[in-house]
């Protein structure tokens, strides 16, 4: 399902060019707007669709499995940390989904490089680097007790 750009909505900010993992979103030479230079190489990751601040990028399904007249559009709201999908079928049915992206503010999770380097004695331990604080399991590894299991599973 390759992406395409609504040229009237695109303001050519370059966010999709920066984020595309296939490097196929480029700025065109005629209007300085984004476009997909190689639809065959698009792996439908939706990165550009979600990153576009103007919601100017859509995805066109291949006709062999995506019926004409359908629509799958997505709205990523960073400040709310939500991602919303709207699926429209060609018979008029519609499905809407909202999912959380994260539950903490952006940038609040320490990256691996921000932790202290492991000490020599840490290499003799069973835990991996930055465990247990990196996994937030100071009280020990979480273990299921038989009483916690659902009836019929054991």
């Amino acid at each position, binding site marked *: 399902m390759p992406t395409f750009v*609504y040229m*009237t*909505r695109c*303001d*050519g*900010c*370059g*966010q999709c*060019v*920066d984020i595309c993992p296939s*490097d196929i979103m*480029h*700025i*065109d*030479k*005629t*209007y*300085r707007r984004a476009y997909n230079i190689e639809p065959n190489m698009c792996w439908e990751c939706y990165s550009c669709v979600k990153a576009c*601040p*103007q*919601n100017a990028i859509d995805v066109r399904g291949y006709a062999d499995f995506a019926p004409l007249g359908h*629509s799958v*559009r*997505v*709205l990523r*709201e*960073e*400040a*709310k*940390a*939500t991602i*919303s*999908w*709207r699926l*429209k079928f060609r018979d008029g049915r519609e499905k*809407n989904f*909202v999912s959380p992206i*994260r539950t*903490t*503010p*952006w*940038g609040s999770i320490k990256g691996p490089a921000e932790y202290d380097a492991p000490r020599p004695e840490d290499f003799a331990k069973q835990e991996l680097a930055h465990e247990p604080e990196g996994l937030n399991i100071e009280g020990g590894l979480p273990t299921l007790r038989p009483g916690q299991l659902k009836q019929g599973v054991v």
Partner: protein
Amino acid sequence: MFTSNPFAGLSASIPPAAMQTYVVIMIVLVAAGTLFDVVHKGSAKYFFDSWRKSKSKGAKQLGGGELVSIAMKTGLVDFLASGEFCNAPRRVAHLLTMYGFVIYVVTTAVMVFGFPTPATLTPAILPQLWWLGGLMVCLGGYWFWFFIRVDVLAEGHSPFRVVRADLFILSLLASVTLGLIWAFLQTKGGSGAGVLFGLYIIATTVLFGSVPWSKFAHMFFKPAAAFEKRVSNANGSRSNLPGPADKPEQFGTARQQPRHY
């Protein structure tokens, strides 16, 4: 320098009628170029098709009052305040260039038609506004060209690569910059004013004559697209996009601007 009308000074060598005819030709070129652009690219057809589609898919039929309110919002926010831009420096650069260009063009026309010779004394405010408009175009335009222009390092092109998309901004900058230098030289009586004037006319003719090939016409179709977008949000069709999630904005943002030259 900032209070003298450069076109009145020019009237000694070029008759005012010739200057006025040139301005009229430029206006005709813009109008004809825009119409050609609209027909050739089918932008008006696209706009009305999208409009009809949005109207038929919309959950709510909009009344005349709502449409007027949307049109006013589009005019005030999207057109007059360049509300479309999500990048603040880009929006400021665009506003500087847009308003600078409007002030520059209007004062040029007023001076050429109203005060074409030294015999009719030009109010000092007109040349001052002309200079102000020109400098605003230069500030916004060069800022855009050197620091904000959309192209990304990852593409590996030279920062000085010139493509057709640059026709508008480069001819605009050339026209205004050469115009200001010519006015400066003419006021100071410096040599080379004639050559600068010739270059100024060439750049200006390219700017207004290249409308079908440049993005000059964006100032006409962009407000139409912004209006259509607002209508589709108001009538519920939202161009098939989901509505905003019913959650508070509490997580901030981690978005970074793309790396440009």
